[in-house]
């Protein structure tokens, strides 16, 4: 079993919530992430860009009812990093 690891990139509140929202799902649309996090488009785009740059999430575009939509999903490395981060959080809590 791999050791838990605290990931600074994931731990920022908005990025942590983005990863948490994507983790149990296959794909999530930009609109849904924005609604769940309660942030503006620009703030969300900034955090998504940071996660994309390190290869934790990816996006794909498609059209639903003629409208272009952006869908996001966790990559294998992003999923692994998130799992290790959660493990580390649990370890911190259980150590107290």
């Amino acid at each position, binding site marked *: 079993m791999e050791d838990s690891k605290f990931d600074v990139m994931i731990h920022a509140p908005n990025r942590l919530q983005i990863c948490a929202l994507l983790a149990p799902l296959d794909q999530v649309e930009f609109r*849904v992430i924005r609604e769940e996090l309660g942030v503006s488009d620009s703030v969300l785009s900034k955090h998504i860009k940071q996660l994309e740059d390190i290869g934790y999430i990816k996006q794909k575009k498609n059209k639903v009812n003629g409208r272009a939509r952006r869908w996001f999903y966790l990559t294998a490395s992003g999923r692994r990093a998130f799992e290790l981060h959660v493990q580390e959080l649990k370890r911190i809590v259980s150590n107290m």
Partner: protein
Amino acid sequence: MYIWFPIWKVINFCTMTNKKHIQSKKAQEALDSINKIQQAGLKRVLPTPVWLGAMLGILVGTQIALLGAEIRTYNTILIVLILIMVITIINKTQSVGVVERMMLSKRAIIISLICIVLLYFLAIISGQYLNRHYGYYWAPVAIGAFFTFGIWSLIIGAYQLYNKRTNIPS
């Protein structure tokens, strides 16, 4: 110096304990926020409505029964209705903005689909065979009903699994 040393140690220990306590509290808060948003995300996933699943099951079962009895008159209309059902289910999933993660691997999904298609044709062929050679007129109907029940059970199973994952009492 001798007197102050242990006091420093005590102060240091208290500070460390306090820091640890704050860390632990923040970690717990982070874990709580993760659970909360995961539940919110899962609740957005709409399971295939039970009535839609039941209709799909009835349509597929009817088609198998009719083809088994070698009645092809309504085949085209049944195929069109089944396609409309499938498109409605896909469209409903797309419009909510979340797609649920499949528990099965891609390989398992492909194998399952191949098995379902094979079973579908096997059901039609066995219905035709039993009807033609043994005169069992009820056989295609029984096989069709069996398929309807199978699809219905799958939809109910998926629905209950969804409720379990999102902690909604059924």
